């Protein structure tokens, strides 16, 4: 177990592992998204209340879920990096932040587009989920701003890890805000007692989209970690040897 852990933490090993992982994540992910997009947009029936407008959930729900998932990657990466002084974990955090910010932005935009016909407004300050998601976006901005304003990578890693961990409290509030404050946002549909309150023809495309988005997120993350590792290890021998080797770093 520990041997495996140490091996995973070694940058050259992870650099190669990520390269083999990326196609295995990206190809099924993109296929699932293609199926989910087709089945969700053309096959699934109209919602009896919301009509065609409900179809935006096929982008909105996976984005909103990944916006929090990416934050968790950042926070856990930071925690592992602080506790076990594992440099690679910090690289995971650094790589996850911009992807998470992008998904948060996507969730906000799609939610806003959906809100216009459904709630009659682009933006509703009274809704805690919207506000919390916006705060999440600001947390990502703060994390990236702190990172970019510290020149020393090791120091930037640790400082931003502390910030990410403090912000976890906020993500918890995001998650439970629906129950804490009375909300305009729809309640839980997928994960609730008695199974999902959704017809199978609508549900399966959504599940496919969530899984597909997650896999593509994994591929993007692996890609970014590779770049991050390469940049951080740019003065080491293995990087030089790899670049000078016949394969040229493939």
């Amino acid at each position, binding site marked *: 177990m520990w041997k495996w852990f140490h091996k995973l933490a070694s940058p050259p090993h992870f650099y190669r592992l990520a390269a083999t992982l990326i196609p295995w994540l990206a190809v099924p992910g993109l296929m699932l998204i293609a199926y989910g997009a087709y089945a969700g947009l053309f096959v699934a029936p109209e919602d009896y209340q919301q009509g065609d407008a409900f179809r935006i959930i096929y982008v909105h729900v996976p984005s909103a879920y990944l916006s929090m998932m990416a934050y968790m990657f950042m926070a856990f990466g930071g925690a592992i990096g*602080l506790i076990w002084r594992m440099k690679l974990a910090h690289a995971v955090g650094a790589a996850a932040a911009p992807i998470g910010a992008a998904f948060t932005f996507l969730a906000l935009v799609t939610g806003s587009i959906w809100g216009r016909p459904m709630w009659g407004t682009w933006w509703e300050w009274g809704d805690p989920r919207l*506000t919390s998601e916006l*705060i999440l976006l*600001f*947390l990502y*901005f*703060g994390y990236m*701003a*702190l990172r970019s*304003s*510290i020149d020393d990578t*090791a*120091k930037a890693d*640790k*400082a931003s890890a*502390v*910030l990410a*961990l*403090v*912000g976890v*409290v*906020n993500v918890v*509030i995001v998650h439970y805000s629906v129950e804490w404050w009375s909300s305009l946002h729809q309640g839980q549909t997928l994960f609730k007692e008695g199974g999902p309150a959704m017809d199978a023809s609508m549900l399966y495309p959504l599940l496919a989209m969530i899984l597909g988005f997650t896999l593509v997120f994994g591929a993007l993350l692996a890609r970014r970690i590779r770049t991050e590792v390469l940049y951080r290890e740019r003065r080491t021998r293995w990087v030089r040897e790899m670049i000078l080797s016949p394969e040229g770093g493939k």
Partner: protein
Amino acid sequence: MVAGLVAVTRRDLLLAWKRPGDVLNPLFFFAMVCTLFPLAVGPSPEQLTFSGPGVLWVAALLAALLSLNSLFLGDHEDGSLDQLLVSAQPLPMLVLGKTLAHWLTSGLPLVLISPVLALTYRMPGNVMGVLMLTLLLGTICLSLLGSIGAALTVGLNRGTALLGLLILPLAMPVLLLGANTVSLAAGNEMYTTGVWALAAYAVAAISLAPYATAAALRISNE
């Protein structure tokens, strides 16, 4: 353990006493932001009563942010921060002492002058009491949360903008609870839940934030 806390608090209070400008500036800022709103949105009594709690809370939040930049800056510049870091006393307690002194010189005065400003917003007496109570708990939370941000940015020379970007998202739940509790009280509705939630937030912040601040200080001063 407590000796270090008391010593640091006393030292910071003494420093603040010798330099009253640092204490007064955020207060003037608070008063001035509260003056800006009636000038901008118009002096109608209904408007002021309606927006009073929110305006006072936002002004308090900004004033707290303004004062946070200097929390560790002086100590960092003259080297006494390094002395705190190598001290035999537990760092979280020392940090708590510094934060306590900061709150006594920035948060508490703000709470004390808030009724005067609330008066100009035509806030009735009982609501004023709720405002003071929520600001009392809220400024404790803000000082503690802010100390984390101040510790993270202490050596960076990036000023208040970065600090605001780090702290304001974390402070938003406090603002939301505080301002809405006062609004509920103004509308003669049940407001005790908000007060308890703020109190819970303050207790959690007192117990956890000093550790985060201590860790951040060690990282910033490696």
